[in-house]
């Protein structure tokens, strides 16, 4: 089962706030525990900010998903920015090419159940994360 996604274009700081609010709403609907809601919203906040700051803006899509066993939430962050040249390095705690702490990407990965990243230099970055209900 796959619902229609809810989409938010990310072009400003305010859109990052909107992404957080949408993810929170969907997480509550999916009956994620409070701690899991908080983890997912935090991860979404980090990744949406990356889409804006490093990807130059993009699109965030939020889906409700279900496998044979349980329900969950999948979020896709897509930008058409410069892409990530060294993925392993980018996923290292503390590494940043911006002014941040270098925890966004690596931290977000720890806060979700599934994390995939597709990127190529000059072709943008698409990150997909999933959090399952326990």
């Amino acid at each position: 089962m796959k619902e229609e996604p809810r989409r938010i274009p990310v072009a400003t700081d305010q859109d990052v706030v909107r992404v957080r609010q949408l993810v929170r709403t969907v997480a509550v609907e999916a009956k994620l525990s409070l701690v899991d809601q908080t983890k997912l919203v935090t991860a979404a906040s980090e990744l949406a900010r990356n889409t804006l700051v490093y990807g130059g803006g993009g699109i965030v899509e939020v889906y409700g998903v279900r496998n044979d066993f349980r329900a969950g939430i999948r979020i896709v962050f897509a930008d058409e920015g410069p892409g990530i040249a060294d993925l392993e390095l980018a996923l290292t705690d503390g590494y940043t090419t911006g002014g941040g702490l270098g925890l966004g990407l690596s931290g977000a990965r720890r806060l979700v159940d599934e994390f995939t990243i597709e990127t190529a230099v000059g072709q943008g970055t698409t990150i997909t994360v999933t959090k399952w209900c326990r």
Partner: protein
Amino acid sequence: MERVPVLKIGDILLVSIQIDMEDQTALQLQEDLAEKIVATGCHGVIIDISALDIVDSFVGRTLATIAAVSRVLDAETVVVGMRPAVAITPVELGLSLPGIRTALNVDLGIEMLAFSRDGAWAEDAEDDENEADPAAVPTP
């Protein structure tokens, strides 16, 4: 952009973050607080985050910077009211919140500031005494 108000209560500046802050709002708060500390000469800052439903790396970094800047301006910062679910995420995120003191609520935060201020005074007084001591011993 919304702005977070900074209230002066006695010797303390109180900030209660009641909105989902844009990054710019957080940076503005950082500036506003530094200016207000200098303008008022307050020695304590309490930041109430009980209404925040997440602390991501940006907010965490902003809180740490506020604490560090306040210290340079002779003010102590206490972050109060962090929700239990919120406390778990910064740790998993790898955010260490260096130099941030925390208390469970505003009341305890005020107590903590009063205590550390009194403690600092008591220590100063003790130091003065110790310095005075050698002079009191007559040299043969």
